[in-house]
Each structure stands twice: as structure tokens, then as C-alpha cells.
């Protein structure tokens, strides 16, 4: 998978996914991007992952399109700014602000979809095996938000690759916490 990944091709694919209104494709692109970022630690790739996630949510919710004129403006700006990022990764920030602006005007939640994207992608890195601190540092997420996100997943139920038995861990805790007074 990751051998074929490049930021430019991901952006081109994202533009196609937008044309097709294909939110599954957007989501998959975001997943491929974050896998790549786990290896390369490329900030632009992390941003692409978050943008893909945010857009998959935005394009999936009807209420963002209620104000038709506002929505059409958003899609035009988004396409133009995404095209710019192919040659200039710094323009990714402009794409984030396009999404934030739309979310502020029609979104229904206090926290923004882009904030959710940050903690979501940080928690994905954490699920892969990247530490909480490293995942937070790479994505700009708060460790607190990532732990909350992690707590809402089945991550701890899926990954039990430790050789330490629960009873032995409990006994260690009992020993060190033995009452001394």
C-alpha cells in the first residue's frame, strides 16, 4: 500500500472523490495518508489525512448543503485551494480554513470537525503503536483529547500483546502500594 503513496497523487484522488461525492474514497485516502505518515512523519501527509477525514464527514452530512449558495461557494474554494496544494503544500492550511469557515457557519457542534479530525488521526497513530506523545506531537493534538478518543474505541480490546498476566500486575501494584503506616 504505502509504497505507492505520494501527497500529490492523494490530492488528485481527493479532487476526484469530491467530484464523485464519494465519501468512502475520501475516508480511505485519509487512512492511507495516516499510515504513510506513521512511517515518514511528513506534516503535509498528516494534514492530508485530516483533510480527507474532515471532508468525508462534511460531504456525508446533508445539513452542510442546506444553504445551497454557501455550499457551492465552499466547493469551488475547496477545489481551487486543493489544486494549489499540489505544487505548494503550505496551501493545505487554506483548505483547513475553508472547512472551518463552513463548519462555523452551518455546523451543529461546539467543537469543530477539524479538531475531531486531529484527535481521530492521532488516535489512529496510537493504535498502530506510535506513542501518545509522538502521535500528539505529530498531529498537534492534545494528549487529553487523544486519550478520550482512544477510550471510545475498541483499541484496548483488540491489542493485548503483553506477556504480563493481570494477576501478576495486580500483585506488583499491591506490593508497591502496601500500607506503611
Amino acid at each position, binding site marked *: 500500500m504505502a509504497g505507492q503513496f505520494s501527497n500529490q497523487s492523494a490530492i488528485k484522488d481527493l479532487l476526484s472523490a469530491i467530484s464523485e461525492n464519494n465519501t468512502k474514497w475520501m475516508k480511505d485516502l485519509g487512512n492511507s495518508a495516516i499510515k504513510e505518515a*506513521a512511517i515518514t512523519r511528513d506534516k503535509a501527509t498528516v494534514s492530508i489525512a485530516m483533510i480527507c477525514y474532515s471532508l468525508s464527514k462534511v460531504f456525508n452530512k446533508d445539513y452542510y448543503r442546506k444553504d445551497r449558495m454557501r455550499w457551492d461557494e465552499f466547493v469551488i474554494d475547496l477545489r481551487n485551494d486543493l489544486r494549489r496544494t499540489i505544487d505548494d503544500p503550505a496551501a493545505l492550511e487554506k483548505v483547513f480554513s475553508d472547512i472551518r469557515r463552513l463548519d462555523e457557519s452551518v455546523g451543529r457542534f461546539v467543537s469543530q470537525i477539524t479538531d475531531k479530525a486531529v484527535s481521530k488521526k492521532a488516535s489512529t497513530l496510537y493504535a498502530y503503536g506510535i506513542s501518545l506523545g509522538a502521535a500528539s506531537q505529530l498531529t498537534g493534538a*492534545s494528549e487529553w*483529547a487523544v486519550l478520550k478518543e482512544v477510550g471510545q474505541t475498541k483499541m484496548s480490546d483488540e491489542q493485548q500483546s503483553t506477556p504480563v498476566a493481570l494477576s501478576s500486575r495486580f500483585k506488583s501494584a499491591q506490593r508497591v*502500594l502496601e500500607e506503611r503506616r
Partner: protein
Amino acid sequence: MKEGGLIVCDSSSIIALSEVCFLGVISKFAEAGARFYIPVGVRKEVVDTPITTKSFRLEAVRISGAIAKGNITVIDKPEMAAQVHEKSNLIMNLANNLLSARGKPIHLIDYGETEALALALVIGCPTILVDEKTTRLLIENPRGLHDSLENRLGVQIEVNERALSELSGMLSGLCAIRSCELVSVGYTRGYLDAFAPKGTVSGRNLLFGALFAVKENGCSISEAEIREYLEMLAPVQSGQRPENL
């Protein structure tokens, strides 16, 4: 290493405990003689940074209170700082060169996490309280990280055997416990009784609720482990109808 009631804490466990209002459990253990230490970097993560945010300010205030009361001690002695810094960088360097993909080392861990490990090694404290699973796997099963990354990323991950042996040698004396262990031992001591007067709630409900709360706030405990704790510490008595947990 010295044996004793010393515990070095990572930010992940302090966060999980404060989110569910269980800092009181730390205070009960501290009153009973345990000492909870954190390095400067952890204080930054659990107090200095969140106190500037809207969402986590109250938790930061609570932790700050626990530090002010002496239930949690920040180790910031300048003579120790250099040693901790040096060891922390060494651990970080080894851990971040442990695994690689496509010839590129994978950055696994950050300074904040290695600082807690380094502090534990420098002060000779064998127990580290850490909910964060990558740090825990580095102590207990670094090859588990290899498997996790390889399976989830779908790429071949190489292990640097020299770094693995050096890191394992360095961390082998450490024992990791999680916030759920603290809560479970606290339950056996009656430290959770403050949440509900005795007899009003069954022990199973209390323990289940407490363990599930820390899980929901990032402690890496599985539901199967929660059930194991229930069977171990609050089993269904004969003739008693088990609650639907």
C-alpha cells in the same frame, strides 16, 4: 534497585485518573505511605498545558491541587535533571531506532514518555504507573510493537536487534502498572467507598464502574481484563443474582 512505595507516573495515568475524579485514590495511597513522583515534562503535560485550555482546565487545576498537597511530587532538582535528560535521550534514541520500514526508522516515542522512564531509572524506582501502551510495550514486549505496526501498516517492519537488546537490558528492571491496578487495589482497601455509602451499591457495580471509567479515559485495559478483575476481587456470591454489567 530499592524496594519501596515509590511510583513514577507517566502523564497518561494521571490524565485518566483526573478525568474520572480518582485523584482522591492517589491521595489515600499517599496518606498510607506511597510516594508518587513525576518529572518536569509530565507536569507540563498534565498541568501547565491543559490549564491554558477550556476543555481540560478543571482537571489541570485538580492535578495542580494534588501536587500542592504533596500527594504527587514533581522531581525538579537541578542535580538530577542532567542525569534524567541524558538517560531520557538515550532511551529515546534507542526506541526511535528500534523499528524501521522501507529503511526509515519509525519515530515511536517522545521525550515526555522517555523522561518518566529515565526518572524511574535514575532514582532507582522499579515501578512506573503508565496507561500509555507503547511505553508499556517497550518495557514488557518490544516485539509486540513490531507485530502491531507490521499488521496495521501492512508493510514489512525491520527490528534493530542491537537497539532491542540494549533497550531491553536497560528497561528490564522496571515493572509497569496502570491506573486500573491502582483503582483495583484501592477498591480492596475501601478507597472507593467515598463514592457510595457502604451497602448502597454492590462491590461489583462499584468496581465495574470504576474500571470502565478509566478505560473510557484511555487506560488500556480490555473488557476481558475488567471481567477478570471482577471475578478476582468482587465475585458473585453463591445464591446471589449477578447484575447485568
